[in-house]
């Protein structure tokens, strides 16, 4: 009986459409046989937006639209990775062998981004990405030169939740994109001369993304190259709702938000 149920569950999960922050389909590897692998496929990035502000986020729809467009534009257009040492790809068997090989890698995914407003934690799956809108952030940080700054947004890197002060997001929607790109693995930039970059975070945010940053995000999205051979893929669970709860309750982050909305 137990085995039958287990079997049924497995069958059901196999027919269930993929969901989560990253959903990829039509994945293909093209080997040009001179050491260049081109990765193609359709990837949908979904970011769920949870309004935790006291007064409400009246411009949320237009801000979500602008952010969606920017996320899509920044990810699109392909990216070249540095030469990598990995396993040899066999295009005949569509598998990676045990033999080592040096490759150049080209990411050429067709990206679509979708921002969805949610009203409760029950709408968050374990492998979703989330951006919370809050009233304030008490967290202060010190840059590499020893100067102190207030935070307009905060994120837990590499798949974790992101949060932005709604008033700041209203002033500049790119702050939300900046925070989400931390979720996709990008670090902050502080060096002088980088003020026009999206990941710059000392008092202003630029809009530029470099090829290396694009490659790093592609690397985060398709973190295990062997998944490319499966044809379709969705990201593993990050335990998003629990991570968000811990993130918001962490006193050192100093979030100010409407706790009644966090349900």
């Amino acid at each position: 009986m137990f085995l039958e149920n287990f079997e049924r569950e497995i069958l059901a999960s196999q027919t269930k459409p993929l969901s989560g922050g990253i959903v990829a389909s039509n994945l293909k590897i093209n080997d040009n046989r001179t050491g260049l692998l081109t990765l193609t496929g359709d990837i949908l990035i979904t970011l769920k937006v949870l309004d935790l502000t006291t007064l409400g986020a009246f411009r949320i729809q237009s801000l979500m639209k602008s952010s969606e467009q920017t996320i899509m534009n920044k990810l699109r257009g392909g990216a070249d990775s540095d030469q990598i040492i990995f396993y040899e790809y066999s295009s005949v068997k569509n598998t990676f062998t045990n033999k080592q090989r040096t490759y150049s890698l080209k990411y050429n995914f067709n990206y679509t981004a979708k921002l969805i407003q949610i009203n409760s934690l029950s709408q968050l799956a374990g492998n979703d990405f989330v951006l919370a809108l809050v009233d304030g952030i008490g967290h202060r940080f010190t840059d590499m030169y020893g100067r102190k700054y207030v935070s307009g947004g905060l994120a837990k890197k590499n798949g974790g939740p992101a949060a932005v002060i709604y008033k700041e997001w209203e002033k500049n929607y790119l702050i939300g994109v900046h925070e989400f790109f931390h979720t996709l693995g990008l670090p902050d930039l502080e060096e002088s001369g980088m003020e026009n970059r999206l990941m710059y975070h000392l008092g202003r945010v630029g809009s530029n993304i470099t090829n290396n940053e694009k490659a790093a995000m592609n690397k985060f999205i398709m973190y295990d190259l062997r998944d490319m051979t499966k044809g379709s893929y969705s990201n593993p669970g990050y335990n998003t709702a629990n991570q968000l709860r811990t993130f918001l309750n962490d006193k050192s982050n100093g979030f100010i938000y409407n706790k009644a909305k966090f349900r």
Partner: protein
Amino acid sequence: MVLYTIKRNLGSIIIGCCLLACNNSHHTNEKVLAVKIDSCQLSLSFGDAVMAKMGECRYCHLRGDVPRFEENVPTLTELAAMDSLKISNFIFIGGHSGMYKESSSPLFKRKLDSLDDCEKRNLIHFIKDYKRSQIAN
């Protein structure tokens, strides 16, 4: 009265001589300290770029929250839990020896040799970040 004035003047002269002697001794003992200025700035973005330049370690050393690549390949979180010296030994001395087959080994060695001290420190700084709070502004 005259005697008292002479005594006071002599006292002043003696104190003055002592102060002068102290000052002189200070000057003779003065040392010139050569301070070596460390111009290497640690930054996560630089460490990230070094990792990409090295051949992107993250294709095999996956993050700690996803299934590991292979049983004997440590995740980035496991590497980050080591102290800096151990990480350095792992990368630059022993950890990878024998892991790369003949075809890839020269390239990897070339990449390792091309790193300067500051790049190595930034690479380790970036790896160590996987064990920190991971909070970014």
